[in-house]
């Protein structure tokens, strides 16, 4: 069974041309930073190339053949991405990324609905992109921020949740934490937020790449995610919003394409989702996003999840064996509850030095605060190194990581 899966991961690697190239030092590329951005399969790269070579044209306007083909491909990609998270195409807005999607909610829905004294509930382990937009909304409106606390392992403490939800207007929460990889128990949190009457926003940047996501089953109001973390190009993301909310809320950015009629004094707006897509969209990247979710669906999110659990379990075993050299792994340390992310430190070696030495062996990891500075401060960590796994990683990648860590321990005489 294991051999069959391993062969499949090897087959998957063959679809990603970057793995065929050695690093500048002539080492094979061991890419363990997919939580920052994923690599791209040939089919996604080809989709970009084909669009620009064969039917580059603006959408929703041209009457000529290639414009019609571009419009059709663009809207077909929307339908594919919508199906991927189980919503209607009319409920999926293209954005630049997760950050822009969250900002869209904070500005368009937030400005229209949030009043002084309202409560915006977040958690203590949010990425800056699911914290700063709400801080600014609170400053604009006089709302207050509350945080669901975490314990020493970085797991949410839900004992006082109903009290925190009391009087709450918005709950915004990451589906999967980006620093510790914690999968949040949304099935236990969202129903209680609903009962309290809060708008539920999910930051799915680390969710959609790794877990089967069904926004209808989650019963959230908004779900924000990025293409580039799930095999698509950078520069395209998406926001799911419940149809009734998208119809009632005002637009975010304004200009061309999002209008129905424009006069010198007054404008009527296009219907959702186009009402929220001002200006020429990122056509090529959106089309490639559709190809990326096809690739993921083809492999199967269930397979990806099981594969990541297996790699994570193996990495935990191997890293734990380095404890005598001073290696410490943070977070829940249970593959069932983490989405392919491990944060760690090696003795008194700074995470940036660890990452630099790993780089000499072709191993790419992230080092620093992972855009979660409040979490790092709360946990008393100055910086951590982070290895994150995806469908193309293998146990051999983990072995290379471990031998590179042993090299770092040797250099630093641990």
């Amino acid at each position, binding site marked *: 069974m294991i051999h069959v899966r391993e062969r499949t991961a090897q087959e998957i690697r063959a679809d990603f041309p970057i793995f065929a190239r050695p690093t500048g030092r002539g080492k094979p590329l061991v890419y363990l930073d997919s939580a920052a951005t994923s690599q791209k399969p040939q089919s996604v790269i080809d989709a970009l190339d084909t669009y620009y070579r064969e039917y580059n044209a603006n959408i929703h306007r041209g009457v000529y053949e290639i414009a019609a083909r571009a419009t059709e491909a663009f809207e077909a990609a929307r339908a594919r991405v919508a199906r991927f998270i189980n919503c209607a195409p009319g409920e999926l807005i293209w954005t630049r990324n997760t950050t822009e999607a969250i900002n869209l909610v904070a500005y368009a829905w937030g400005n229209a609905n949030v009043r002084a004294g309202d409560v915006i509930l977040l958690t203590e382990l949010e990425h800056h992109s699911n914290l700063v937009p709400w801080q600014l909304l609170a400053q604009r409106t006089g709302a207050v921020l509350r945080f669901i606390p975490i314990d020493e392992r970085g797991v949410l403490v839900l004992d006082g949740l109903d009290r925190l939800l009391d009087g709450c207007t918005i709950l915004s929460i990451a589906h999967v934490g980006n620093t510790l990889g914690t999968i949040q128990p949304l099935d236990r949190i969202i129903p209680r937020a609903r009962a309290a009457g809060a708008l539920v926003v999910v930051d799915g940047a680390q969710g959609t790449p790794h877990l089967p996501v069904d926004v209808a089953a989650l019963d959230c109001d908004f779900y924000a995610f990025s293409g580039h973390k799930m095999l698509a190009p950078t520069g395209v993301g998406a926001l799911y919003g419940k149809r009734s909310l998208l119809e009632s809320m005002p637009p975010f950015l304004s200009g061309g394409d999002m209008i129905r009629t424009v006069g010198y004094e007054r404008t009527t707006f296009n219907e959702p989702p186009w009402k929220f897509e001002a200006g020429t969209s990122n056509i090529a990247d959106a089309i490639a996003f559709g190809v990326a979710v096809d690739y993921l669906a083809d492999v199967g999110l269930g397979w990806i999840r099981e594969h990541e659990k297996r790699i994570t379990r193996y990495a935990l075993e191997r890293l734990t064996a380095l404890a005598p050299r001073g290696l410490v792994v943070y977070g829940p340390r249970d593959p069932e509850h983490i989405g392919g992310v491990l944060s760690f430190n090696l003795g008194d070696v700074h995470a*940036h030095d660890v990452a630099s*030495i790993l*780089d*000499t062996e072709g191993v790419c990891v992230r080092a620093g605060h992972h855009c979660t*500075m409040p979490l790092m401060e709360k946990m008393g960590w100055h*910086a951590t190194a982070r290895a994150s796994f995806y469908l193309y990683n293998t146990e051999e990648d983990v072995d290379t990581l471990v031998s590179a860590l042993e090299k770092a321990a040797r250099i*630093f005489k641990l």
Partner: protein
Amino acid sequence: MEDFYRDYILDHYRNPRNFGHLENATVSAEELNPLCGDVIRMDLQVDDAGIVREVRFSGKGCAISQASASMLTESVIGMPLEAVAKLSKDVVLENVGIGISPTRMKCAMLGLRVLKTAAIGSLAAWPDEE
């Protein structure tokens, strides 16, 4: 890059010279490396003739930033403050004696930037960008 982590660098990292604060500092500055969040503070005591008599640095960071800052404090004691304000990246490169990769140049230059900021009295440019 692995060549960088030589014994004297690791010694400065684990046993930083002139580490701490100066109660009676004449000038001080504190800045962070936005890349990694590392912060370094420099306190300088300058005599009436404008000569740096004592330096202390504090902060937490990688071996490159800490060792560079530690060695730098040894370089500037006895130097006129005006000369500190004009120091170039070469002082750091000569101190560490080893090539620094472009991705880690900011780590190496953080201590010097903070020192120059203290000497100038306003935020100094990154020494590697001057």
